[in-house]
């Protein structure tokens, strides 16, 4: 008989609208569900919603009516999932904190990176007793699942130094890239007259969009041969409107987000790729895709980006201030040979993050736990 896996997340669909914006986490979820189905499991998903059931990519998704978010945990949602998925054999908690207060016996939980390094997190757990309460709940969340999967080493290091009794549970399964789809193109043709800087991220402050816009203003006014391409969705429609208006006031700045299928070409046309996150990063899919396309990456010194970029080897790791960004971009923009060398090294690193390796690692974990 087919074994059943329930997956719990917070927001795949927008809780109240028929809207999905496919970012990295959504793609990860769909790819994981596809892998589970390929391995012969029946999969259904639960998330926050208004008691609806929808379907995506052949998987049923159930919306659970809850609004409670305490100390960055979702106890009502988690308990509703526990009861509703009783007929399911196994569970996957797509976010670590969803395994609080209770987790299914045969289950896994995933961390997509540290999200509590964002200074604004202090608003939620800033007071000492609130922080302790969040940590107490995380301790419970980590206790339940049989294995804890992290996309980066940063999360594992954080917990090993904070809640050290879960050392044996952690599994490092870094994010992935399809290195056949994302590959370099031969750009040894004629000299290009413009250097293209790409920002392939959501237009949100933690991704460093504000610093990048300011750096773009400085560099495009200093060098007419530098152009900036912003390629990502806003957090809401108004942000996209504002970005469109802003680029229309700038020389050599462009905004034109693309769906995933067109992203290989976007990376291939770039000369330097910026991943200038301030915080809240795992092993960024965008960074991996840029590296797989043979591009040097200027990355924020945060989260799992340090697992991907080696300082001065395949790009730069820096605190993404305007000053630091301007200096790093300026240097690389003027040094074609360095860009090429760093890009080649990036490609080599990306090969070890191939999607096939991710499939194999996850398959082994699933087989080990779901037995």
């Amino acid at each position, binding site marked *: 008989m087919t074994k059943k896996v329930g997956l719990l997340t917070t927001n795949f669909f927008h809780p109240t609208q028929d809207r999905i914006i496919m970012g990295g986490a959504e793609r990860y979820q769909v790819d994981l569900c596809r892998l589970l189905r390929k391995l012969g499991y029946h999969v259904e998903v639960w998330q926050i919603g208004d008691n609806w059931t929808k*379907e995506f990519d052949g998987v049923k998704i159930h919306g659970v009516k809850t609004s409670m978010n305490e100390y960055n945990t979702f106890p009502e949602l988690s308990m509703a999932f526990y009861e509703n998925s009783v007929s399911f054999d196994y569970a996957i908690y797509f976010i670590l904190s969803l395994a609080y207060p209770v987790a299914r016996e045969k289950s896994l939980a995933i961390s997509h990176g540290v999200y509590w390094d964002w200074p604004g997190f202090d608003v939620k757990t800033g007071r000492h007793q609130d922080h302790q309460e969040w940590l107490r709940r995380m301790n419970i969340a980590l206790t339940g699942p049989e294995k804890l999967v992290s996309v980066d080493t940063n999360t594992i290091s954080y917990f090993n130094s904070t809640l050290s009794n879960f050392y044996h549970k952690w599994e490092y399964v870094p994010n992935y890239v399809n290195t056949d789809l994302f590959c370099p193109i031969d750009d040894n043709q004629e000299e290009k007259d413009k250097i293209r800087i790409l920002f392939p991220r959501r237009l949100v402050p933690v991704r460093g969009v504000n610093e990048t816009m300011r750096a773009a203003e400085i560099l495009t006014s200093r060098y007419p041969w530098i152009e900036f391409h912003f390629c990502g969705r806003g957090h809401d*429609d108004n942000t996209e*409107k504002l970005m469109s208006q802003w680029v229309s006031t700038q020389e050599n700045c462009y905004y034109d*987000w693309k*769906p995933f*299928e*067109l992203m290989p070409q976007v990376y291939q046309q770039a000369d330097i790729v910026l991943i200038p996150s301030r915080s809240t990063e795992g092993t960024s899919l965008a960074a991996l895709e840029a590296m797989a396309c043979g591009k040097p990456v200027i990355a924020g010194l945060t989260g799992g980006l340090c697992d991907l970029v080696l300082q001065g080897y395949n790009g730069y790791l820096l605190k993404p201030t305007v000053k630091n960004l301007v200096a790093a971009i300026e240097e690389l923009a003027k040094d074609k040979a360095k860009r090429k060398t760093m890009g080649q090294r990036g490609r080599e690193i990306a090969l070890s993050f191939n999607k096939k390796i991710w499939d194999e690692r996850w398959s082994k974990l699933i087989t080990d736990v779901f037995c």
Partner: protein
Amino acid sequence: MPKLTAMMIVRNEADRYLIRCLQHLERFCDEIIILDDSSTDNTPELCLSFPQVKLYRRKESLFLKDEAQLRQELWNYTVNNSPEWILTLDADEFLEKKAATELPPLLKQTYFQAISFRLFDCWGSEKYYRVDGLWNPWLRGFSIYLVKYQPHLQGTWPKLKFHCGRLPLSYRRLPHLEGHLRIKHLGWANPEDINKKYQRAITQDPEFRYMSKEHYDSILWPPEKIKLEKW
């Protein structure tokens, strides 16, 4: 590459944007299914001058009587021509030029069976689009224009005489990929059309059931009240 079929209803489009629209569609569509709603000009002949076009003709016009029935007939003709992906555009709507190269990858993706776009209403010229109130393309959301044909889904329309939607209801409920290509709508681009279209809109919806009175009134606003952005 998956087959792409465009479907369209036309009526007396010869002096408007029809030729440009068909020239634009033939760049990336394999087949164009057109239902002529009893044109009295040479619209049918123009349609037939394009080899990809399959033309069906109504003897009696339905557009102002029962749009849902008209849409249903077009859908039935379209699905009888073995479509894979179906694009629904009007004869005054244009996808951006890059659609010829950037639409095919969307048809090959396997996450979504429906793709939505933002529509930009060009106003008074083809160079500017309107952004005030409900005209704002950035804030009014995406609509589905492109779907993968799925025989198991019902291909029926709600019983509405007007504003009944371009696709069967079941397709409009599909999770959709928000497409990056913009649709340029030229229906309001010619200043001479604006008053005529206003009259038609309020005749069809005298009790303001589909749109607010304020929105209809905004059609006739003086230029200084209208906000535009460059295309």
